[in-house]
């Protein structure tokens, strides 16, 4: 199961959990599983998120792979100049 780390102000939408374990092989599956397990996270996910999977920042790619042992961090959608 991939371990998804929620930033602190998201945890109130996931019953206070800092880390949520999800069964997923892609970023898209991971986000869908998160929302299914914790529907209150839906607005945050729909607002657009970037993620970091095992240190690799994935700005916007639902097809990016997630491994069973992956450490995933949710990040706000990044913009650049």
């Amino acid at each position, binding site marked *: 199961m991939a371990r998804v*780390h929620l*930033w*602190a*102000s*998201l945890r109130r*939408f996931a019953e206070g959990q800092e880390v949520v374990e999800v069964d997923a092989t892609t970023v898209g599956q991971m986000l869908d599983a998160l929302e299914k397990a914790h529907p209150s996270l839906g*607005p*945050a996910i729909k*607002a657009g998120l970037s993620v*970091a999977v*095992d*240190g*690799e*920042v*994935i*700005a*916007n*790619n639902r*097809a*990016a792979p997630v491994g069973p042992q992956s*450490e995933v*961090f949710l*990040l*706000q*959608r*990044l*913009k*650049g*100049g």
Partner: protein
Amino acid sequence: MARDDVKTGYKLIGTRPNRPDGLDKVTGRARYGADFSLPGMLHAAVVRSPHAHARIVKIDASKALALDGVKAVVTRADLPTGLTGEDLNLQDNTLAGDRALYDGHAVAAVAATSALLAQDAARLIEVTYEVLPHVTDVDAAMAPGAPVIREGVADYSVPEGMHGNVARYMEFGHGDVEAGFAAADIVREHTYKTEATHQGYIEPHACVGQMGEDGRGEMWVCTQGHWYIRRMSAAVLGIDAANLRVTPSEIGGGFGGKTTIFMEPLSLALSRKAGGRPVKLVMSRSEVLRATGPTASASMDVKLGMKKDGTITAGQVYFRMQGGAFPGMSPIGEALPCAFACYDIAALKHEAVEVIANRPKAAAYRAPGSPMAAFAVESLVDEMCRELKLDPIEVRLKNGATNGSKSSYGPVYNVIGLKETLEAAKDHPNYAIPLGPNQGRGVASGFWFNHGGETSVSLAVGEDGTATVMIGTPDIGGSRASIGLMVAETLGIPYEDVRVNVVETGALGVNEPTHGSRATFASGKAAVEAARQAIAEMCRRAAADWGIDAEAVEWKDGAAHPAGPNAGKHPPMTIGEIGSKMGSTGGPISGHHEVTAEGVGASFGTHVVDVEVDPETGRTTVLRYLVVQDAGTAIHPAYVEGQYQGGAAQGIGWALNEEYVYGADGRLQNPVFLDYRIPVASDLPMIDTVIIEVPNPGHPYGVRGVGETGITPPLPAVASAIAGATGARIRSLPCSPPKVLAAIKAAKG
């Protein structure tokens, strides 16, 4: 100082050929946004609110429309209804609805047969306003009793009880912060403020739009991202994106400010209303400053714990940032992760709120959020180094992030070059130059994530063995040259045989803009893949000609060669020979690659600045300035140095002079370059550069984006140098002469 002497095994990468756009630009042949014209073209002018916040009671355009030569007027009533979310924000900003939300907010637009006539007509459009309470300062906008300027801006993240102008809230961290502060020898806490600054691109926004009554249109525009212009304009006008073709012009600077729309849909709306005649719309400098995105202003609390040996035990920040009258524009989501990104600290807490205020809709500006965050954190690090009499570079080396460090925002860094920049700065001759009276030295490091993003690139082999590359990322910093070098290196042909063109929206799949320091990284990566695809096809053509398997052919030095024991003996077949007969060997040879590019390499830099402060006037002179930054691999070192120098120059301006000044009436007081003071060449010394190369394993040639990090360290570095020169710490930018003089007097008691 560059890397020209470093042996890499590359033939072209790392060289400095002439700029492909240089001759056109110095001779005036380059076509910028305002240079484009069409037969029968009309000219547009925009009516803008003179109030920071006002209800629009009535718009009467009858006098304007009565003028001979006035062909169309558009107001919000001409735009479709029913938009939501960011599309509605874009439409609201393009033309105000029932309320003007900032000084300069567009209220109506007019098209006429000449620019002067359009301006006269705009003055004849009578707008009746009911002035409403306003607020422009970030802290004042959150204060009890501040007018709520738009209802319902708070998103899911805002806890109950916060002010109605708070649009977003964020918090994250790790470790036990209180225990970290308890373990420190000193704990210091201060508030730092930065003012809004503008990207200051020399070319104002400009476009020509044409749209018929059938809703099909075309636009020629100065932009960093024409697919974004297409999507946003189509949304604002309620048309299908496929019905709009957008061609980018040359661009005279963007720095993030041209990644979105401000007035572009107006040219199309006016054209449609004027029977399909093309309409040119060019902003004045005053319009650019009043109504296009500056960056956010910020008010930031920082607390740090440090041991006497310089070990940072804990850090905590609380940022308040306003990004204008629209939610989602203040970069708290970037500023917070950047705040401590240069450090490996056991306990950190980050908290931020986004606030709206009666200011123009902010846009991205070079490493959005990172310069403000660096000003707050790096200034306090410097203050504590001075208090403990510690070398600021040694303290950063002691606490700095390195390969395998857990970043302040969660993920572990892969391969990064921060410590290499610190070591190079420490060893640079500038760091050892003795300082004279009234002189001070400042040091700061900076970070930017860098970005990959949606990218589509095509490459075509010519009949003469040259190659044409089609990219969708406008060239704002040398990407055509860098991509040309990478393609030439891959194909094994001279750089001069590769031409890179930025093409329109109909020629490629969707490309994100040139933003996030991504063009050389992402379009370059895709171009290399496209070249490899073309190489594979050329090897197949040679193999077919030789009657051997394609696997028995290898590509080197611009030609197919037989390889392996069974390939036989054949003279190499050059790209020119293959190209000259491709019509009879299977047709055109091309390569194409599209990807949401990943594998970005984080970017770190360290700056050292020496200043001299006139104690009589408070004026600061930059004596010398050093930028050290990791480029991964410097494809075209001259452009890399230019990015470093440009970032430093903009950061110095932010530190010393630039600010949006609002009057009590909420109107911008300095909407011209005479009063909004960006640095000019005579203000700055030659900015020294050192290119560090820690190749990014996520790119075939090791590229990291280099465009943004350079603006981050100057804010704290300059303020720290001034503190060194005067003993007075400025915690609110800019360090303008009156402010420095007052601080000197206050420090003397």
